[in-house]
């Protein structure tokens, strides 16, 4: 039977798989980009900027995924409304904005990146609102915990 605990475990597994994929992409990026440029018959001049974009996005991407993993570990320990989780959500949100910025700049050589930049910014904004909600929930929980 499906329950919230299994849902957290499934999310945790998906996050770990995604971390693996991101690391895999970082390690094989030159081969992947060369293959893509050859397959899509693109101008070989885009190889270097594409690699720069991938590596620049990989850093905030990896930070966000590791933060997400920590967040899920806290949720598994039933520590949901804590200050640490607010910090993790804030970090993930800033990572999304960083990726958005990098992709927006990359849009100057490949227009498609601009659309993904907007999607990343939107995602960052949603996370920021969720962070604000959790921040308020932490304050309410603290007040409740210290009501004797």
């Amino acid at each position, binding site marked *: 039977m499906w329950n919230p605990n299994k849902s957290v475990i499934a999310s945790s597994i998906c996050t770990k798989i995604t971390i693996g994929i991101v690391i895999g992409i970082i390690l094989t990026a030159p081969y992947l980009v060369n293959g893509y440029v050859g397959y899509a018959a693109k101008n070989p001049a885009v190889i270097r900027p594409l690699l720069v974009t991938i590596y620049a996005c990989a850093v905030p991407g990896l930070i966000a995924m590791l933060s997400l993993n920590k967040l899920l570990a806290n949720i598994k320990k039933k520590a949901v409304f804590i200050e640490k989780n607010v910090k993790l959500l804030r970090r993930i949100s800033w990572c999304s904005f960083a990726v958005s910025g990098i992709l927006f700049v990359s849009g100057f050589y490949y227009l498609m990146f601009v659309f993904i930049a907007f999607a990343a910014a939107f995602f960052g904004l949603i996370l920021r609102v969720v962070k604000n909600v959790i921040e308020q929930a932490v304050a309410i929980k*603290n*007040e409740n915990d*210290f*009501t*004797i």
Partner: protein
Amino acid sequence: MAIGVNLDVIMAKRKISAGELSDKIGITPANLSILKNNKAKAIRFSTLEELCKVLDCQPGDILEYIKED
């Protein structure tokens, strides 16, 4: 904090220990310690009622308004 809790003063007057008081009013020693050390954000009327009953005092004997500059 603008409201101070003078629980230790009244406890000393009544010669009652923290463990005994927490047992009698039905809260955990940890929560009583939060209350005693002025760490509490609020106090329930039911807790205040029990404290007054056990310590034979008025709410004003336990709680004090401290003016902040």
